[in-house]
């Protein structure tokens, strides 16, 4: 549905997007992650023909953009960097005006499509007040309704849950899942990893204009090479496993050991033989957040050699582009210390 090759945009000396190969297949929900200022919005604008690439090509639904925009864009719905509407019109009047522009989607079905779109985004009961008087959340919903108006095959959404309360975010998430189930391909650009993790089947991570990771969520390597052993008998377990334990953290029932085990089954048998009570023994899994931050940190570090301490923190190189990422997590209620302080532990 979306395919870019060598997509590059320079603004003077600033390299906004650098040699981007993006692939989004039909039926996917693709999560496009990146810090504020990493080039996400510029990419989205190039996909839609608003910004012209310095180099490289964009294909949408198999046709080149911007050359075939007229044929392709009617099948695409988009929300680009916040919604926008004519402030003096009511939501319905605005949608009708936008629908009447450009290639016809059928005048007879306009009223029905507007009602359907408003219904889907939870604005069905909206009155005749002008958009000027809408709250931020209502504007965001109206923007989504506008994107859905043409019953698109592809949705390109840039930060769709901006300005929504938790209830609203949940509703939009449900809506996107429904649309996906109905066969709509969704390209979701966001700096909120939690949002992407809950929805997306595939992710691409953009860092300073370059794609640093593109992978199906199911195929992500989540292992850390360590196992988490939860036990009330922390002291005895530690004595037994001395040498392979990286750290001890607080657990729900006593404590937990993070250990590098070559044969977890054998270790479990040893623990049991020594009558050490084990409440859980499982591979330690990285969250999507940790994977993303890790891959970016490696990119920033340059070498990415395994000898470097792998810390789920961004290097403090004074690059404020990354601050958005951190903010994003904080906004979203991520626990920055991670479960059991994993982040503090070096490998």
């Amino acid at each position, binding site marked *: 549905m979306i395919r870019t090759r060598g997509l590059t945009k320079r603004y003077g000396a600033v390299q906004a997007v650098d040699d981007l190969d993006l692939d989004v297949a039909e039926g996917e929900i693709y999560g496009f992650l990146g810090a504020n200022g990493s080039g996400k919005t510029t990419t989205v*604008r190039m996909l839609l*023909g*608003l910004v012209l690439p310095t180099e490289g090509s964009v294909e949408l639904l198999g046709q080149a953009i911007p050359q075939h925009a007229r044929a392709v864009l009617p099948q695409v719905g988009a929300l*680009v960097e916040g919604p*926008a509407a004519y402030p003096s019109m009511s939501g319905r009047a605005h949608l009708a005006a936008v629908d009447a522009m450009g290639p016809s989607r059928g005048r007879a079905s306009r009223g029905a499509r507007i009602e359907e779109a408003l219904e889907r985004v939870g604005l069905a009961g909206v009155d005749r007040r002008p958009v000027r008087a809408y709250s931020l959340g209502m504007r965001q919903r109206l923007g989504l309704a506008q994107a859905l108006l043409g019953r698109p095959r592809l949705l390109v959404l840039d930060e769709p849950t901006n300005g929504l309360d938790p209830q609203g975010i949940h509703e939009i998430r449900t809506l996107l899942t429904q649309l996906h189930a109905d066969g709509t391909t969704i390209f979701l650009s966001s700096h909120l990893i939690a949002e992407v993790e809950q929805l997306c089947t595939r992710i691409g991570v953009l860092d300073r204009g370059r794609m640093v990771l593109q992978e199906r969520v199911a195929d992500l390597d989540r292992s850390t090479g360590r196992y988490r052993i939860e036990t009330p008998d922390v002291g005895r377990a530690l004595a037994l496993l001395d040498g392979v334990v990286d750290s001890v953290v607080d657990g729900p029932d006593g404590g937990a050991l993070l250990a590098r085990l070559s044969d977890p089954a054998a270790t479990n048998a040893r623990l049991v033989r020594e009558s050490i009570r084990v409440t859980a023994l499982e591979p330690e899994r990285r969250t999507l957040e940790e994977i993303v931050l890790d891959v970016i940190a490696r990119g920033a570090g340059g070498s990415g050699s395994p000898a470097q301490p792998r810390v789920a923190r961004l290097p403090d190189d004074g690059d404020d582009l990354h601050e958005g990422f951190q903010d994003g997590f904080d906004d979203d209620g991520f626990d920055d210390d991670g479960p059991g302080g994993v982040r503090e532990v070096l490998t």
Partner: protein
Amino acid sequence: MIRVELRRLVRSRRTWVTILMIDALPVLVAVLLAWTDLGPRPGTGPAFLSAVLTDGKLFPLAALGIVVPLLLPIAVCLMAGETVAGEGQLGTLRYVLIRPVGRTHLLVAKLVSIVAFAVLAVAVVAATAYVVGLGLLGNASQAVSSVSGTTLTGRELALRTLLALAYAILSMLGVASIALFLSTVVRSPLAAALGALGLLVASTLLLTLDAADVLKPWLPTRYWLAFVDLFRDPIHWRDVVRGSLLQLGYLVVFLGAAWANFVTKDITD
């Protein structure tokens, strides 16, 4: 797109408030004239104003002479400056373009809507002036005399008045296309409007300067009041034709520049 633009224009309260404000000045002049009966001496003041005291039917032309030099172009500049930059500022520009509306198509639609505004404004001004003129000022009911002193039949007068109205609308094309061009260049609609307005002020000023004689035939405001020549007998076409060509020239050049700039522009607002 054109239909949507026109509907927005007609439904916008701002359109009508602007037109009413433009219209208020000639009405005020008519009231003052009727009240004081003091017309400007023949040959001074806005065109036709001395003649309207005896014949209210000429007042639409006098009204045109009042609004064309300043009020109408200001309104046209504001409208045209708003077009692209205003939609950019609202954020609706990107959504219009991905709807998709072609960029060339968008420019044409905007130009049509500006011209439609000029037509509406001129029509409203002329119509009110006709009513006010007949009601408040003299109604000689006899044939009117042309500027050259010969008599015009009612039919001739009506025809020439319509021509004059059309010429006034045509005269706005130059400023409209300049403001439209600026609107594709700058982000602020106000900057685009004031830029075009600045050019008009400069043009008006240069017209009074003998040293600027070489420039005069090319200044956008040079032939604005040439519609007076339509009321000579026989009609003095030279300035009207030159004025029309000049406006079309400005239209071609600045619309072309607007197009060249806009179709390759990165839409980042």
